């Protein structure tokens, strides 16, 4: 897994990996039958996707007779952790992305004194409201 520097994957690559996580040791023809036909893509496309994933280090393969059998070289949980890690990095790298606005800016720095002051103001207002209603 350490050989995978940037875990960016296309939707077909992810679909192939999902299929192999569910059922390991498949060849290109079997994968084409299960996901290629549904997506309307050719066997060649599936083969090149497998080749790409193999070269990126996501898959291991073994030649059996005339075909390669592919197995995942990464665990699903590990890859997902890396994918989300990349998203969090994008959200907090100090270059705000307006199309990915979070509830609270992950890169925002609010110092402790300010936080305490804001919390105190809220508590005071809450106490005042409760006093008014009681």
């Amino acid at each position, binding site marked *: 897994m350490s050989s995978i520097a940037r875990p960016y994957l296309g939707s077909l690559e992810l679909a192939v990996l999902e299929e192999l996580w569910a059922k390991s040791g498949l060849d290109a023809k079997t994968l084409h039958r299960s996901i290629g036909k549904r997506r309307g893509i050719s066997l060649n496309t599936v083969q090149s996707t497998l080749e790409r994933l193999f070269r990126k280090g996501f898959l291991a393969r073994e030649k059996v007779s005339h075909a390669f059998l592919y197995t995942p070289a990464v665990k699903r949980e590990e890859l997902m952790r890396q994918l989300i890690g990349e998203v969090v990095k994008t*959200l907090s790298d100090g270059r705000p992305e*307006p199309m990915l606005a979070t509830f609270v800016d992950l890169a925002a720095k609010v110092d402790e004194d300010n936080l305490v002051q804001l919390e105190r103001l809220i508590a005071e207002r809450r106490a005042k409201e409760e006093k008014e209603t009681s």
Partner: protein
Amino acid sequence: MTPGIGTIASAILVFAGGSFLVAAIIAALYPVTQRWILGRHPGTRAGLLLVLACAPAVVALVLLMLTLSPSLIHYLGLGSDHCQAHGHHAHFCLIHTPLLAGTSLERAILSVAGIAMLILFAAVAFRLRRVQRAVRALRAAQIAEPAHQPYSVVDSHTPFALTVGLVKRTIYLSSRLRSELSPTELMAVVAHEQAHCRRHDALRMFVADLMSWLHLPPLRRRLLADLHLASEQSCDEQAALTTGDRLGVAETILKVVRLNAATDRNSDILLPTMTGSDVHVRVDALLHPAPTGSGAPRAVALVGAGLLFAFGFTHADGLHHAVESVIHLFID
């Protein structure tokens, strides 16, 4: 005939000149009017700021259309030949001017415009790719949850909630955030994100980001930061309405800030950003009574824009000649 440049290069000059003029006017007026704008209801403010962000591009485009309208009317057989009345200055027309004149001045204008467009497209493509990768990762990593939930959950130790998608919008919550928040706090966060969905904020920000490139860079950053804050505050107000507890929304914001601060992330990514002070402003606004909104500004803006366009259209001949005179000054 226009000496030196054809219609395309003239159109580029008119667009560039018009947008620069509008950008300069806004740059001069914004510091004076910013306090008034920031005092508006967040929804109204977001609308105003979107208009300001897009103004140079939109106004320059309208100016271009109005300038070309006399020759277009003639071309369609709806009016007389407007070009016979002058010959003393440069000519900018769809009928009598060639599209390309083939001069070195024209090549220079087209080259600069082409490079600017390429840079803009490359920047937009880079940003969209960045967002698309994030969306794809979030989709892949979402945990299977009951279908009736208005949000998807992704397994992450970082406490975050966000809405993604320009057209098909989805709310994502990290598993950590969901587990740390109480049901009421969770309701506030989801209501806030649902408001982003209803308001099409990601699309608004994309349009503002794209169209505001014609502003001066410092003002562009200010406008986008103010627009971002207005959108967040507008969604805070919606969350306060949904939960019926303004202070509860403020408390939730601070709780998420604290959770983020306590999350173990590399210190080099905790950089101050243009939205770093937003938390203080958002919480402060929630400590005060809900601002009163009004639909009037949108109606006033639409009527105003319509009247301005009608005025421009009725004076299109004068505008056309004035623009030709200005072009003449530059290329003669």
